[in-house]
């Protein structure tokens, strides 16, 4: 009322009605209207402006000087000279300026403002008027739309990745089949030849062969380095078979990554940890000792046990690699489980090289790897992230100090579904 009084002071009765009419008109406007005098002090505002900026307890007059104005993202505070009303007082016309206002009335409003200089001939001064709309909902809708589009793009990417993955899987599985059959054949063939060679050696040792012939056979055997082959060929075959197993498991993981279709069952994660650790011994035993701190009385969580096991396996393998890379003496991998508010938490801690801070954002991206070529596929953590976050609605976080080690934390939510009777 003070503000209105200032504007409409010294009125005649005949003016009264027109003033009342004008006030009703601006109060009915859905847009906020604010008028300031040459000093920037509030002269007039309407109901929409009050609703947007003030509160029942803090009238706009009171909070107006304390307003804080930021850009539309709410990150940069605007200089006083950048404000639309200030610019209008300098004679500028400001159209469609978008900004965020925080007022003392504890309100945050996103506004689109149009401001004009307003010449007060009678007073011989320049005032300014601003008309604004609250665009909070519009901005939220746009952000929501952008998020939807991002998710859709991600889903399309996964879809095409899935088709690619099945195609690649087929292409890889076929040669893997005949490589493994052939390796098996070579193994049988080598054994047969080794048996024959053993028989020849036994005959020579028995003295059943003339001295000269025996000497020739011995010489030929040394030239052919048969001892070396006897030792190395079986190792080469065993390692080739191990390699084939790894290829097969990567192809399987790639396929599962692209085509998830599994049912969640109430699961005791302590049990999953125990079985996984038993399976993964080969992955860490040369570089680290494993310590288990299992809660022992975990509530069951709804999950696909095989997938969580795969996640844990990936984390253990990563931990082992991080320790090996640190190149110190034997390291320690610690797996801890605990019940938290609404689920179960599983931590894998190592004292390996740690994750440099600038990479911690990227380590969950598919095909991102810092490991030497041939050491890692760049799939492990991306798969883990996908399983934990996307399929189980959980969280996967990393805390790491470079040079000291990392802790990966998996959180699996409990999910209220009843455990089926066994």
């Amino acid at each position, binding site marked *: 009322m003070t503000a209105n009084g200032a504007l409409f002071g010294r009125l005649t009765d005949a003016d009264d009605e027109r003033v009342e009419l004008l006030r009703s008109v601006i109060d009915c406007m859905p847009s906020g209207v604010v008028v300031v005098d040459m000093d920037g002090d509030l002269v007039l505002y309407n109901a929409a402006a009050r609703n947007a900026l003030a509160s029942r307890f803090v009238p706009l007059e009171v909070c107006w000087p304390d307003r804080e104005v930021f850009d539309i993202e709410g990150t940069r505070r605007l200089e006083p000279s950048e404000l639309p009303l200030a610019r209008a007082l300098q004679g500028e016309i400001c159209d469609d300026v978008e900004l965020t206002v925080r007022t003392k009335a504890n309100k945050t409003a996103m506004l689109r403002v149009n401001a004009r200089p307003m010449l007060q001939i009678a007073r011989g001064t320049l005032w300014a008027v601003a008309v604004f709309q609250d665009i909070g909902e519009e901005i939220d809708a746009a952000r929501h739309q952008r998020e939807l589009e991002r998710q859709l793009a991600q889903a399309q990417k996964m879809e095409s990745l899935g088709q690619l993955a099945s195609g690649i899987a*087929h292409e890889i599985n076929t040669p893997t*089949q005949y490589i493994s059959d052939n390796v098996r054949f070579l193994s049988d063939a080598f054994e047969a030849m080794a048996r024959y060679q053993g028989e020849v050696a036994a005959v020579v040792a028995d003295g059943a062969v003339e001295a000269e012939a025996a000497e020739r056979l011995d010489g030929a055997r040394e030239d052919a380095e048969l001892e070396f082959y006897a030792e190395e060929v079986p190792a080469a075959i065993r390692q080739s078979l191990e390699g084939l197993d790894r290829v097969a498991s990567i192809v399987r993981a790639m396929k599962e990554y692209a085509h998830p279709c599994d049912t969640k069952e109430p699961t005791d994660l302590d049990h999953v940890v125990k079985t996984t650790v038993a399976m993964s011994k080969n992955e860490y035993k040369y570089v680290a000792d494993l310590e288990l701190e299992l809660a022992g009385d975990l509530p069951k969580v709804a999950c696909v046990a095989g997938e969580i096991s795969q996640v844990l396996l990936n984390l253990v393998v990563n931990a082992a690699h991080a320790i090996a890379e640190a190149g110190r003496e034997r390291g320690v991998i610690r797996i801890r489980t605990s019940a938290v508010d609404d689920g179960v938490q599983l931590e894998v801690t190592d004292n390996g090289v740690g994750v440099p801070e600038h990479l911690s954002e990227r380590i969950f991206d598919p095909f991102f790897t810092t490991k030497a070529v041939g050491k890692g596929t760049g799939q492990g953590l991306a798969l883990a992230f996908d399983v934990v976050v996307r399929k189980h609605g959980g969280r996967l976080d990393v805390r790491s100090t470079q040079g000291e080690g990392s802790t990966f934390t998996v959180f699996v939510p409990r999910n209220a579904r009843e455990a089926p009777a066994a």
Partner: protein
Amino acid sequence: MRVLFVDDEPNVLAGIRRMLRPRRHDWDMRFVTSGPEALEALAAEPADLVVSDIRMPGMSGVQLLKEVRARWPATLRMVLSGESDRDALLRSVGPTHQYLYKPCRPDALIAALERMDAMLDLLQGAQIRAFAGTFDSVPTPSSAYAEAMAVLDDPEGTPARLAAVIGGDAGMSTAVLRVANSAYVGLSTPVASVQRAITLLGMDMVRALLTVAGVLRSGSDHPAVGRVLAGGRDAVERVRPFLVDVDPEVAQQTELAAMLRDVGALVLLGEAPEDYAPLLDLPAEERAREERARYGASSAVVGGYLLGVWGLPAPVMVAVARQTEPPLEDGTPQALLARALAPREAA
């Protein structure tokens, strides 16, 4: 056993040929690189088993195996495929006895071939072997099928509830267990629990599987089918007291064998309900004698043969095939089931 391997990749065939060389005296093996070539080879001389790739140019493995089923119904059919996704599996469910996937470990391939060989021996010389290869599914009553679908449609449906329905029906049980024991799931230990099979496959996969498995078929709603199934559930009850202190895995296999004890009879009912149904009224021994006279094998042996070629756990297969014979080895599902069934049927 005469085996024909079909794969468009010659290197795969060469690898298998070399790897299986130590078995060349046991098995007569031929290798061809396309479906049409396979049909030609079979026309020249039939095989006991065809092992085929799925994705091949021209005629696909599924087409080939369908053709083989139609023209050589005695021939067993196995898939060795590089495609291991569920759509590929569902397409080949019909004409395939067992599914293996590339890369298949040499030991696993040899074990699967040996199993097929043993099954062929089981029906050696029996008239029924000439068309046993066309028995692709066990009839399921439409009421049981509808009940399973209702659980699958219920958003609150759990694997446990679904297992309670499917576990009481031989047709749906064998359908899910066949796939759960195939290389599609990739477990090294055999699965004898329907609930575990459902959990492994996932509810969506079970639904898709039941719709393509052909369990709703001729004979499904013949009253005798319901009676035989009730007999299976009754056998489960009878065997339970024998399983108190038994290893859980053996117990599970024994219960499954009890439920599936009359799979052979169910399939024969499905093929010719009116011919076979009267045999069910005969006392057990007389019925087996009549079956042997007609088919060259008892329905128990036919059932065991089917469970064997479908890749169900070997102890279950043995228990079904030899359910009325003297216990072989103590503590096995065969011995447990034979004991549980013996007294009352003799009485």
